[in-house]
């Protein structure tokens, strides 16, 4: 009896969790398909026959900035995660296995990078990039995103590389493989899950970033989050468009997170255990 009661309570909690986690998102998705007249009706008019794609068609109009925002975000996030994985996996392997002098100091400073408020580096970066003509360029944002994605990539991958049995590399060395070959043909292929996890993580972080994007871009390289914020401007009242732009810009990362859920979830567990 008591057991059943606690089961019921747990079920209730689970249902409320699902409701609270997905409710706000579902609400935004559903209402993004409604015309303004339904949204501003009292009470809100949820008549499904009035569902329309107008909001989506309008925000995707090339003059509205969301389309180019999505493309810019795609370019920046893809390159950032590719470079972060290449540079990061090499560094992580060196720190995990190549008995580098000062590796502890490097690791600690990598960890410390997570603690900086963005604004501290944003001001000097803005000045330097203005001088170098890197404001409003893809390259400029990529460098900045690399700086905060790279440490996490290195940290997680280092933990994983350390968990690979050292015998594997010894065997390869005895067979005459060079260090680079060992890394390329033995370590990397068995590290695909954490590589995917960190790659997806890097992509999502760079895709979603807003603070530096608003400081370091003007017109040409507006990213998707900037486009959303413009649709959500303080005195804007086109609620449907604001919601449609948020849904569209969230779709790629949410889908990525769902597809790679196993890698991400395992990456978390792995990372938490190893760190």
């Amino acid at each position, binding site marked *: 009896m008591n057991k059943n009661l606690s089961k019921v309570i747990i079920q209730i909690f689970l249902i409320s969790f699902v409701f609270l986690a997905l409710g706000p*998102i579902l609400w935004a998705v559903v209402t993004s398909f409604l015309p303004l007249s339904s949204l501003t009706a009292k009470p809100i008019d949820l008549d499904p026959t009035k569902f329309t794609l107008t909001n989506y068609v309008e925000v995707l109009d090339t003059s509205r900035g969301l389309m180019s925002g999505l493309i810019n975000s795609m370019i920046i996030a893809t390159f950032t995660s590719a470079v972060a994985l290449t540079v990061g996996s090499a560094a992580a392997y060196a720190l995990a296995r190549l008995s580098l002098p000062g590796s502890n100091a490097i690791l600690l400073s990598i960890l410390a990078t997570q603690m900086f408020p963005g604004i501290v580096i944003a001001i*000097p970066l803005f000045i*330097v990039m203005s001088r170098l003509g890197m404001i409003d360029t893809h390259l400029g944002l990529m460098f900045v995103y690399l700086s905060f994605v790279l440490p996490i990539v290195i940290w997680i991958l280092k933990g994983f590389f350390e968990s690979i049995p050292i015998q594997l590399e010894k065997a390869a060395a005895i067979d005459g493989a060079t*260090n680079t070959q060992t890394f390329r043909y033995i370590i990397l292929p068995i590290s695909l899950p954490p590589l995917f996890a960190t790659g997806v993580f890097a992509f999502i972080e760079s895709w979603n970033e807003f603070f530096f994007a608003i400081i370091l871009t003007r017109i040409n390289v507006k990213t998707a989050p900037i486009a959303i914020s413009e649709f959500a401007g303080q005195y804007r009242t086109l609620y449907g468009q604001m919601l449609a732009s948020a849904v569209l810009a969230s779709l790629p990362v949410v889908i990525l997170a769902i597809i790679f859920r196993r890698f991400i979830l395992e990456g978390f567990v792995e990372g938490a255990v190893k760190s």
Partner: protein
Amino acid sequence: MSRTSFFSSINEIRNAGQYQRSRLKMGILFTLPAVIILLAVLAYPIISSFILSFQDVRLAAGGIVTEFVGLDNYMRIFQDAAFRNAFNNSIYFTFVEVIAVTILSLGLALLLNHPIGRPAIYRVILLIPWALAPVANAVLWKWIYNANYGVLNAIVVGLGLSETGVVWLGSPFLALNMILIADVWKAIPFITLLLLAGLQNIPRHLYKAALMDGATTWQQFVHVTLPGLRTTLIISIVLQSIWALKVFDLVFVLTKGGPADGTVLLNFLSWRVTFNYLNIGYGAAIADVLFVLMLLLALAYIRALRPRTSARK
């Protein structure tokens, strides 16, 4: 069989010195790109920001003019009511945010660690709010909080709690708390996943032993779960404090700092002073104060990690 292994071990000894050297060379080669990037994009700006905070920086025709003003910017901080307001807001926000996120995430992690909550679907559900862009999250809540057409007011009026509804972002302290709620909602998934990983690392047999000793569920929680989660809890509290101090997107989209500067947090103030008021030196000084606050938290983080690493060795 033994012949080959004999020869290979001779080979191994002969090559050991060279092998070590090539390892070192490769190690440096492998770390160099990452170190260069981090030095250029992090180390240089941090030092530069420190120097800027002692300067008066103006944008004049043709470029940026700087003038050394000593501690002026820092002195100004202590007299600036806007700074004090942002500081208090940030401390309140961070404190309440961290407590709320930690307690709710711990509860949720325990729920999802229970046999009934184990199905993977629940963890996937956690990933969705986590992956959402903070700006999209802000838009979500902006719509929910909308005074005229928001669903929150529809609920409040429907339940008869208020006749006309509440202007959620209309008064300073209420607006700050509404931003807080939106931020807590977004932060819970990550911390819950961290705590879940921590829960799964607690050895099963400890619970069995506790059960045999006749421990109640509550006693198990206090004497097995909490001590086992200690490190994970400290890590998540420190990380969450750092993230709460960095909140920007929500303020930018929901209130732009208003009403009456009620939702101006330190990060936002520094941005506004620098990039709206173009008071770059003073903005840098505010940023450096925030930096010191976070550095203290970072030291706490590194300390929290230390006992674990020494225990592993």
